[in-house]
């Protein structure tokens, strides 16, 4: 064996070297593969990243587009809304002007900050005696007769947010006085805080009230002067009417009750007729005088329409007939048999006779004289007097002569105001028993609330409240409603009133 040869089974250095080289070669191949893989992965990752970036870019662009779209849309809609709001405001202002201009009442608008008048309708110009344009630029205090009167109104407006129906003195541009009923409301006008003033000329009413007050004072004076030596005419017993033609009343038990109202058409006569019928149904002897000379109607209600009437109250007042010729027994025409008796003294429906008594006038005391003469002549238990609405001399004389005055009103603002004046006058005339009666109460109104309001407003007893019922206000030719429909709520209320009247008048008699 040669020295350089390796023993069998043993690796020579050459083999080792070759093995190492082989190992290195494989390692190199692995590394190269890894390198290639990494390059592929890098390339893949890069491409993926590019895709992602492209997607993100797209999304970013989409979002930017959506944002721009949304903003533009918001601007568009905002503009539209603004324009439509401005148009609505303009339309609203135009409508307000149209409404106010067409309103048959004076209306003006003033700026709250400096009270300058910024709008006045034609009626305001008419009220204040100048074209409405001339009022613009003036300040509201200039319109007040005494500017101090405006202070409490502004305070009330501040406190409660509105002012209703306050009576104040204004002055026309020529300086003359004009009474107005003023209502105030806060209002934004031309985007400025303003006050809307609605006015109502009440000068005539105020002057009428003053005239009325004067008449009442004069009447009171007359009555006081003439009653010093004798008792006043007060219906029953042997009272002497020193103040009214010294009529002597010898009949001792008749109760005098007047039905009155400030305005016509509120059912006063229908109520009076039905109460008369109900009292006759209680066996009483009842007389009814139609003292509504300007618009008589009691004869119709008591079944005498179209029948020949020989003498009327007009004839008596003019001295053309005696009291014994006046009364008509209408008991048979009531629609139901009654145990009592009902007599009517009608007023004339003849235009000539109506005009004559109204134009020529008559001795006023003959009216109250007729009450007592009739009571005595017919031996009446109760005499009902249906007066002409409003406050006139006959009404005042009637109030002074009766024991009980029933003032009928509807639950509305006009009747409330007029009734207030009537009640005031009745109190000054010292009517012994004053009652209020509400008619035509709408179904929507609460009865107790209305009763409380009326009693509180007038500080008087509410004798009855009748609901609104067309069947009652519609004339029925077949007799009195309360007798024919005894179970109807209105009939029941009138029954209670009749009972109350008997009690009330008896009470007065005792006192």
């Amino acid at each position, binding site marked *: 064996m040669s020295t350089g040869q390796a023993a069998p089974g043993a690796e020579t250095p050459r083999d080792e070297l070759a093995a190492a080289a082989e190992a290195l070669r494989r390692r190199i191949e692995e590394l190269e593969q890894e390198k290639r893989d990494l390059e592929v992965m890098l390339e893949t990752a890069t491409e993926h990243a590019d895709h992602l970036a492209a997607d993100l870019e797209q999304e970013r662009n989409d979002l930017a587009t959506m944002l721009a779209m949304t903003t533009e849309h918001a601007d568009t*809609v905002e503009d539209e809304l603004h324009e439509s709001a401005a148009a609505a405001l303009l339309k609203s202002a135009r409508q307000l002007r149209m409404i106010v201009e067409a309103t048959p009442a004076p209306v003006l608008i003033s700026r709250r900050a400096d009270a300058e008048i910024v709008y006045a309708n034609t009626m305001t110009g008419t009220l204040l005696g100048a074209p409405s344009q001339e009022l613009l630029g003036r300040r509201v205090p200039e319109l007040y007769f005494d500017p101090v009167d405006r202070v409490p109104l502004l305070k009330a407006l501040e406190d409660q947010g509105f002012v209703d129906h306050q009576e104040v003195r204004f002055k026309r541009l020529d300086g003359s006085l004009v009474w107005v009923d003023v209502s105030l409301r806060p209002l934004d006008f031309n985007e400025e805080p303003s006050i809307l003033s609605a006015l109502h000329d009440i000068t005539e009413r105020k002057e009428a009230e003053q005239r009325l007050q004067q008449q009442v004072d004069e009447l009171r004076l007359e009555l006081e002067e003439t009653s010093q030596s004798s008792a006043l005419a007060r219906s029953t017993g042997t009272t002497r009417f020193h103040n009214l033609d010294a009529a002597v009343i010898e009949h001792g038990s008749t109760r005098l009750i007047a039905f009155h109202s400030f305005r016509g058409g509120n059912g006063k006569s229908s109520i009076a007729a039905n109460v008369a019928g109900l009292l006759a149904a209680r066996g009483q002897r009842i007389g009814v005088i139609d003292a509504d000379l300007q618009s008589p109607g009691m004869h119709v209600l008591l079944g005498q329409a179209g029948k020949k009437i020989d003498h009327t109250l007009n004839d008596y007042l003019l001295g053309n007939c005696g009291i014994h010729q006046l009364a008509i027994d209408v008991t048979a025409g009531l629609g139901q048999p009654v145990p009592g008796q009902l007599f009517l003294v009608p007023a004339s429906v003849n235009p000539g006779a109506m005009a004559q008594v109204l134009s020529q006038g008559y001795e006023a005391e003959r009216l109250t004289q007729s009450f007592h003469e009739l009571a005595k002549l017919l031996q009446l238990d109760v005499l009902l007097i249906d007066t002409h609405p409003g406050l006139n001399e006959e009404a005042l004389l009637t109030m002074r002569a009766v024991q009980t005055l029933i003032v009928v009103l509807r639950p509305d603002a006009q009747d409330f105001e007029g009734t207030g004046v009537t009640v005031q006058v009745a109190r000054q005339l010292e009517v012994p028993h004053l009652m209020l009666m509400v008619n035509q109460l709408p179904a929507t109104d609460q009865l107790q609330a209305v009763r409380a309001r009326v009693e509180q407003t007038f500080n008087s007893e509410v004798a009855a409240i009748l609901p609104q019922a067309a069947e009652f206000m519609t004339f029925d030719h077949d007799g009195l409603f309360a007798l024919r429909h005894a179970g109807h709520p209105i009939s029941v209320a009138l029954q209670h009133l009749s009972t109350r009247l008997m009690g009330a008048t008896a009470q007065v008699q005792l006192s």
Partner: protein
Amino acid sequence: MEIVHADYEVRYDEASSIVICKGSFRLHGEEYKPVLDLLLKAADARPALLTLDVRELQFLNSSGINTLSKFILHVRNHKASQVVVQGSARFPWQEKSLINLQRLLPALKLEIA
């Protein structure tokens, strides 16, 4: 499918692939989700022609136009439907805003009558 509200309504007629929007859309944010769901459902049906009829849509607030945008993007991503939007010149906002939907989907066809 339909959503009916006192102020607005959305109806999707699958047979004709028409979505009709009416009334006034005054919803806020998430309140539009039911409306968007209905619109996406219409898009997911991938009809060849998909019509969005807003001729009686009087008012659309910002969230509403955003909802319509999402619907258009959804359709675009499907690359399956031609979209036609029908509007009305009676409501000025439609002429100004609907055309912007073409910025998201240039192939969108807008018909303002």
